């Protein structure tokens, strides 16, 4: 579900095409990446993060705007993409589990700490590669979501 959402939303908003990729952590760490973070509170609490190479954020924003933008403007456009992605992510969770929560975008980081990527217990991460070979990744707190989905499957059973 998350894979389709990321690809569809990015394509509709900026005409950038992504495909799921099997990447090694080292490949992500070897690239310069920027990150957007957000958190969710309500029936459950999770954190969300979207990582991408600066060139991809820049293309995303400029394709959306149809013109050249300043770095601050690029960040604003990237944040709007992230807001929409997370809103749709929560809506899909609502459909699957009948739980509601509110999303709060927090920050855009030019030099994110990628250490948490190593903690696979804490985060579920999908890696992507763009039509211009840029890397991107979407992550969320794994345990609360897995618990929610498990609970909803048990209720249905």
């Amino acid at each position: 579900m998350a894979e389709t959402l990321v690809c569809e939303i990015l394509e509709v908003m900026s005409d950038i095409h992504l495909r799921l990729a099997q990447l090694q952590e080292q490949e992500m760490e070897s690239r310069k990446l920027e990150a957007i973070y957000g958190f969710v509170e309500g029936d459950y609490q999770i954190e969300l993060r979207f990582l991408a190479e600066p060139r991809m954020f820049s293309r995303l924003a400029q394709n959306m705007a149809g013109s050249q933008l300043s770095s601050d403007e690029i960040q604003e456009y990237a944040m709007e993409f992230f807001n929409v992605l997370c809103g749709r992510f929560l809506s899909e969770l609502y459909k699957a589990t009948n739980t509601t929560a509110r999303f709060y975008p927090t920050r855009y980081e030019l030099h994110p700490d990628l250490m948490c990527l190593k903690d696979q217990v804490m985060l579920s991460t999908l890696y992507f590669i763009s039509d211009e070979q840029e890397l991107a990744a979407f992550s969320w707190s794994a345990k609360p979501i897995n618990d929610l989905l498990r609970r909803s499957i048990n209720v249905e059973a």
Partner: protein
Amino acid sequence: MLKRRIMVVDDSRVVYAEMRKMLEGSEIEIAAFCRSGEEALEQYDTVKPELVTLDIVMPGMDGLETCERLKKSHPDAEIFMVSSMAYDDIIDQAAALGAKGFLFKPFTKEALLEGLRGAFKAIEGTE
């Protein structure tokens, strides 16, 4: 051509810029842009738009509360919700408050125009 005037309420300038670009050359124009529900309530009397597009998730007063307050102070205000949050209860609440339509983000130019034109048609049908 006399244009239909809307007020866009969204905490993101990006949404305003996108809508403005998508509405270029159409019969609809953005008469005002407000970055919060509070600002929309202040501006409404001055702008007197035919339709207000409201984002749901905004810092401070959210879109549903803004809709409720606007309808209370200006019962003739017409509302169109725009959001990426697609919870059934949010959509139901918006409809119960009298919203004339709901558009999901991300939207295309065609979807925006179709949504707004549908809302104007619904308004004319109730006049």
